[in-house]
């Protein structure tokens, strides 16, 4: 039984929104998504080797949200996220080597092997932080937006959340506060209909998440989460509002994760969701959709595609090699940074 079907416009939606965008921009989005996909696939492929002794929460299938959103941001803008953090980290420009070092528990990981895959951070890129506690990053991002406002900085904050995150009271509290203070923040809710193996229907009454958010008195949008341009557009509008001092926006983007909640591979066969449901969503894979559009319109050559694949492959191979050759932390590292000086 398919519980959650795709309700967007698919290729038509892409075609409609692609109007007026340069080919290079579209190819850039495509490349970004493909890069994340390939990195995730490589992580997944190697996971059983036990070199990455860390939980992983793959974003395969959900690349359009991170990429579409971050394309509308500047480096100075800040991104926060939850446990499912690879996509946001990479889309915001986070360093791949530092990420893989972190996942391999190496001393030069982006969090010095202290954070793990759920705590990717790259301050230079504006990937500001994450929380492994669902909802944990929401008020922190709200506080970052408050700081931007108080310091009169031209900076927008985005926090990525899941559907279940809206069940945590702290999310309601934070929406209220952001709306009250008109903070420059965007709540980007990736609604993938599941929390681990629990479907939305066992956790929330039949309502639309963005309508719930709207009741907190802030503008909301529903953006097709497999359409990178829809996410881009919605974010762009929200960013403009935030920069103009008009306050927060909540964006709901329905998406689907093609893999298990955590770890490698899909776990649909365990029975909590129908393989047919995943198959339906795989037909609107965000990368495939954009690829189809680009190739149909002749906006990308197959030679370019091959080159992009090769570049990505090389980058990934090098990054993994780098991580595996990197040093382990030593005991003294444990005692550092418990307190800040």
């Amino acid at each position: 039984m398919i519980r959650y079907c795709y309700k967007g416009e698919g290729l038509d939606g892409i075609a409609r929104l692609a109007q007026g965008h340069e080919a290079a921009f579209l190819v850039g989005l495509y490349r970004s998504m493909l890069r994340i996909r390939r990195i995730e696939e490589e992580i997944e492929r190697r996971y059983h080797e036990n070199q990455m002794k860390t939980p992983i929460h793959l974003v395969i299938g959900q690349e359009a949200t991170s990429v579409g959103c971050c394309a509308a941001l500047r480096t100075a803008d800040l991104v926060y996220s939850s446990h499912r953090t690879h996509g946001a980290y990479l889309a915001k420009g986070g360093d791949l080597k530092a990420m893989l070092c972190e996942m391999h528990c190496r001393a030069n990981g982006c969090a010095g092997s202290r954070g793990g895959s759920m705590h990717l951070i790259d301050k230079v890129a504006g990937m500001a932080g994450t929380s492994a506690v669902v909802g944990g990053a929401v008020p922190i991002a709200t506080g970052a937006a408050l700081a931007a406002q108080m310091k009169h900085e031209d900076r927008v904050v985005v926090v990525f959340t899941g559907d279940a995150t809206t069940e945590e009271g702290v999310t309601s509290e934070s929406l209220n506060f952001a709306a009250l203070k008109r903070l420059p923040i965007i709540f980007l809710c990736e609604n993938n209909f599941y929390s681990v193996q629990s479907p939305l229907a066992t956790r929330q009454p039949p309502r639309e998440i963005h309508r719930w958010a709207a009741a907190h008195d802030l503008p909301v949008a529903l953006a097709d989460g497999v359409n990178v341009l829809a996410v881009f557009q919605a974010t762009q509008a929200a960013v403009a509002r935030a920069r103009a001092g008009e306050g927060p926006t909540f964006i709901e983007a329905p998406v689907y994760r093609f893999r298990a909640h955590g770890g490698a591979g899909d776990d649909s066969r365990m029975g909590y969701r129908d393989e047919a449901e995943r198959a339906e969503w795989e037909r609107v894979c965000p990368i495939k959709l954009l690829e189809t559009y680009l190739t149909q319109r002749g906006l990308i050559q197959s030679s370019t595609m091959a080159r992009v694949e090769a570049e990505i492959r090389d980058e990934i191979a090098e990054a993994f090699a780098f991580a595996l050759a990197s040093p382990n932390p030593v005991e003294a590292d444990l005692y550092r940074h418990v307190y800040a000086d």
Partner: protein
Amino acid sequence: MPWDEGLVASLVYDRPDPSEGRILTYAQAINEALSLALDRDPAVFVMGQGVDDPSAMFGTTRGLQQRFGTARVFDTPLSEESMMGVAAGAAMNGLRPVFMHNRPDFVLLAANQLITHASKLHFMDNGQTTVPMVIWAAIGRGWGSGAQHSQAIQGILLGVPGLKIVMPSTPHDAKGLMLSAILDNNPVCVFEHRWLMRKDGVVPDGFYRVPIGKGIVRRQGRDVTIAGASHAIELGMRAATMLAADGIGAEVIDLRTIKPLDEEIVLESLRKTGRIVVVDTAWMKGGVCAEIGCLAAEKGFRDLKAPVARVGLPDIPAPAGFTLEQFYYPDAARIAASARELMEW
């Protein structure tokens, strides 16, 4: 062995002798306790994120929803604070909820309902209402769990009046203490260590209880007392074996309940050994180690031949990386070294 696997299978246990009785894993023993409790009393129900998942909370809730229905075994929204209050409200009105969390960190989201409400309402109401509920959480470590997914919170909750906390170390106790917790008329935290979930042990058939508030001597010894609970006993027993090789007789006290504490069993052992190493899976500061260390100096002072020693976590958040974890978590060798120091004092 990625993630889930890594989290529960990090220790290799000696298999018990099957001739001694029926062998179950720790997780199966909990499953049996829940099943028995649901069967005996229609007031019992089980709630928690993913209790009806295919992965079934390490197997502890396997089959329960199929057998007892969705009204009595149900998944919840991601709303820890409200769900804790819902459990308390249901408990105050004739039901016996078992509220399960797959990590203790998430219990902290409900600190207000647990500490300021569930634990205190019976007192505040002058005994007019009771709050019979079980707060179950799998404590643990390893495989990148890190600072936000592996906090052992028993020390934080130790000072909360009105609350009980049990931490079984064997499948036998996991079943018997779970049944006691469900039958208890107070909020009882049942903290189980992930690394014990696969441990085998002899588990009696049918209904039985292990009393809350009573420890047990796991190994006799005259030289030094090693006291702790849950996974600390696993380490303590191995340390005792190491010490025996040096001719040091370690007495291992499994507290089983850390609140209310079986003070007498600790003091009794101290009378014999005069030395104590307190072991805990949580932070040493202001927790179980501190409480029992203080107890020894307060009520067992006359017997003390050497300083009290504590072996637990340093005052540092848990690191995520594998190498750092090895430096962070205490092991049997560290316990044994601590005991040896006391012997040389």
